[in-house]
């Protein structure tokens, strides 16, 4: 295999691919990226056995072929080469890959290509297309709520499934860590009528998110019960799905909450941020006291003292006092792009629903904190 590639093209593709590769591996080949040179293009492939990414880049291929080299080392080298450099990659097949650019020359150890694991394709019967904006919305507005507690593995991802609301078929993404929940929906795309409910793991979500911004407008999604694939213009990301049952989240979204507060989102977020400066660093508790048209935010800690701030809200209901983890509140307000946010509450012990007033496609449920 012998090829010449421009630094910028290689760096961009390699940047996506190498982040899938774990820093430490017990299987040596998993540290490597597979370089596959065809006619006029090169395909880079990396995997951690659960997540597989293939990205294509244009290159001047003189001898087609393939090889594998350490992903992180290669990335490190390419990153440090000067802008605009032309990189020659030459794998003579003696277990070594020679990389040269300008007056630099690197000889890298290589492992045989046939050891490189292939994430077996299998059938992916359900195929549909999402716009990049829709996919971005589904991910961005839910991923903050993904659980990090490994014992509840079935919460360690985004639950993507088909749903229905007022007769409209929807594709919905839900994530929860047991304390809060985020649910975002888009109209069900054609081809997704029969999709099973699947849980996309956290790492796949993170890699996917990086790819969206640098790709075209459309993403082709295909999935089966155990795998999901996202195809962009140049890149294809395939991930195994979490083999577990996502809890029946519908039951915890309260329907009967009758105390509705509307607040200007930005000023609310800023107030929460300010007041929480005083609350203790681990529990981050903040209290919301509602009475008439005024919301009083307060926090106190034995070490730092106390803080209160008042903001104007639209609220009609009995007085209410409710505590929250301020970090959770800020996580939600960060997702709200519109001006106004609506809080639907019942009491200090029951879940509160938060939504953007003008955009009901996203819904957040927050469990209060008892202080």
């Amino acid at each position, binding site marked *: 295999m012998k090829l010449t590639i421009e630094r910028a093209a290689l760096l961009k593709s390699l940047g996506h691919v190498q982040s899938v590769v774990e820093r430490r591996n017990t299987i040596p080949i998993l540290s490597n990226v597979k370089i596959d040179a065809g006619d006029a293009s090169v395909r880079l492939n990396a995997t951690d056995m659960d997540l597989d990414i293939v990205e294509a880049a244009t290159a001047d291929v003189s001898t087609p072929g393939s090889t594998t080299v350490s992903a992180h080392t290669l990335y490190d080298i390419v990153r440090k080469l000067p802008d605009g450099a032309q990189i020659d990659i030459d794998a003579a097949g003696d277990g070594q890959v020679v990389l040269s650019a300008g007056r630099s020359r690197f000889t890298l150890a290589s492992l045989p290509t046939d050891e490189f694991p292939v994430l077996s394709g299998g059938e992916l019967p359900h195929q549909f297309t999402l716009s990049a904006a829709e996919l971005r919305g589904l991910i961005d507005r839910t991923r903050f709520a993904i659980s990090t507690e490994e014992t509840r593995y079935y919460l360690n991802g985004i639950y993507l499934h088909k749903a229905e609301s007022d007769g409209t078929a929807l594709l919905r993404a839900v994530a929860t860590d*047991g304390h809060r929940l985020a649910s975002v929906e888009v109209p069900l795309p054609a081809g997704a009528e029969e999709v099973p409910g699947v849980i996309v793991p956290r790492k796949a979500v993170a890699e996917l998110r990086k790819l969206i911004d640098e790709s075209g407008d459309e993403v082709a999604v295909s999935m089966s019960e155990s795998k999901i694939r996202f195809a962009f213009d140049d890149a294809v990301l395939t991930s195994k799905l979490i083999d577990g049952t996502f809890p029946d989240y519908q039951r915890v979204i309260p329907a009967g909450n009758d105390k509705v507060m509307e607040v200007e989102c930005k000023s609310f977020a800023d107030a929460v941020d300010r007041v929480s400066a005083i609350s203790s660093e681990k*529990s981050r508790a903040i209290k919301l006291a509602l009475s008439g048209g005024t919301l009083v935010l307060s926090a106190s800690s034995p070490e730092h003292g106390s803080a209160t701030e008042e903001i104007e809200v639209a609220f009609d209901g009995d007085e209410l006092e409710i505590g929250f983890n301020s970090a959770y509140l800020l996580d939600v307000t960060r997702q709200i792009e519109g001006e106004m946010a609506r809080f639907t509450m019942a009491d200090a012990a029951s879940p509160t629903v938060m939504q953007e007033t003008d955009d009901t496609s996203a819904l957040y449920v*927050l469990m209060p904190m008892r202080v």
Partner: protein
Amino acid sequence: MQLRRLPETLVNQIAAGEVVERPASAVKELVENAIDADATRIDVTVIDGGQTSITVSDDGIGMAPEDLSLCIERHATSKLPDDDLIDIRHLGFRGEALPSIGAVSRLSITSRTEGANEAWCLNVEGGRVSDPQPAAHPKGTRVEIRDLFFATPARLKFLKTPRTEMNHVTETMKRLAMAHPAIGFTLSDGTRRRLDLAPEQGELFEARLGRLGTIMGRDFADNALLIDAERESIRLTGYAGLPTFNRGNAALQFLFVNGRPVNDRMLYGALRGAYRDFLASDRYPVVALFVTAPSELVDVNVHPAKTEVRFRDAALVRGLIVGTVKHALAEAGHRAATTVADAALGAVRTGGQALPMSRGAGRYGRFPSSNPSISPGLSDAAAQFGAPLPGLAAAPAAPMATNDWAPVDEAESIDDPGEYPLGVARGQLHATYIVAQTADGIVIVDQHAAHERLVEERIKRGLAADGVARQGMLIPEVVELEDAGAERLLARAPELAEMGLVVEAFGNGAVVVRETPALLGEIDIQGLVQDMADDLAELDDAIALRDRIGDVCATMACHGSVRAGRRLNGEEMNALLREMEATPHSGQCSHGRPTYVELKLHDIEKLFGRR
């Protein structure tokens, strides 16, 4: 196959299996009899670890000849005068020991009552009883067991080496002796005395401390806190060791209920709870505690060897132990064990070969003359003391020393260390250790450990004052346990809620967790609840939850405290010392390691051979 009644001898042999497990249990039964007989002196001789012979003689009230023949009958006892199993005032009460021992050995009992003309002797051999014979013996009783277990060869085979059995006997004797300081005890193995404990004089506490010191070592007496508390007619007395005076196992934890040594899990759990904030989980405090409860509140009749007891109100006893011991430790404040200083002295290298005396000698005069307490032998510090002192000396600066020794400016330091237990800061070594001068010695403080402890105490006070904030669970977590575990957990639900964990029943053997302590963040609830159920079963305390909250506090404290390597000025150092004096438990970090070492002047003088 036909049913039949077992012969009396066999019945006694079976009973003996329960009561007399090894020579030490026979010794225990006999010594308890002697104690019940109001003896003031009890002599025990055990030969070949008890296999050849065990002799116990006392100067108690003795037995008349007719009692002698009765005492080896099963269930014959003088200790339940009202046939009331509730009101038990003696160590023994079942009337099982002597017949059991008699059934498996060659037993001879010689006894004479006060004022009787002669003593009487009775022999039993494998359950066969002879008639009492007149014999010669002073007032009291002498019981001799020969060939223990000769009638039960199986049991004989399971005996360990004489040495091991002797150690068990010694342990048993020690425990009994601790509970009865007014009685003199001796234990001999036929050639030499293993124990020789004279009766202790004086009032109970003094006598007891004397006896405990003899048995557990002088260090214990110096490092123990007096415990004396009473709650609802249950009294707790004894001594609890300082946390820094700890051990790697529980061998030096002695618990007594109504004068009876017990091995009770609930009581050990209470102890662990009391010391939890001050010791790492693999270190054990040294304690001797005596619970005195009216006999109707405690049932001792639950274990063949009576090493377990049951309290009518276990939570009360538990609360009493945890509360009292914690209170005593809090009052001890910043005290660290004297053994810490001993250890430090042990580590000091004497001899001048490593000390740059030629350079240092000229500088010595620059120390305040009232400051002979700073020892040049403290290994790490030594070289630095010999070096020039930039803050005090106008002498040419020696570059090597400036980084490591930061003396307190004389003008700003308080000159009278007498009024402060931890003294007045004189300087900082290696930007890590504060050296302070006290009225009669020096104190070396590990600044990070000390400050970390202060911050942790502050965080805990905050938690205690405000309560633990609880984060509600959007999706309550159901945890499957076995029935008993779930019940135990639910019985403690109000207490757990105070610590931030709200659990409710969820059908048979399952609990549902509704709220968790907010400061733990997202946690492995299944694991936590399982651990707590195990803790409750084993130690009767939800240690797992406390530990995790404690860990978070400790981590916050670690991040929020002054690190080693941070230069402190004199005022900062003095402020730290004053705060340590004012804060309870500041003498040790949460793992039981000391935060400071105190060396007395006379210790230092010893190092230099001045004494």
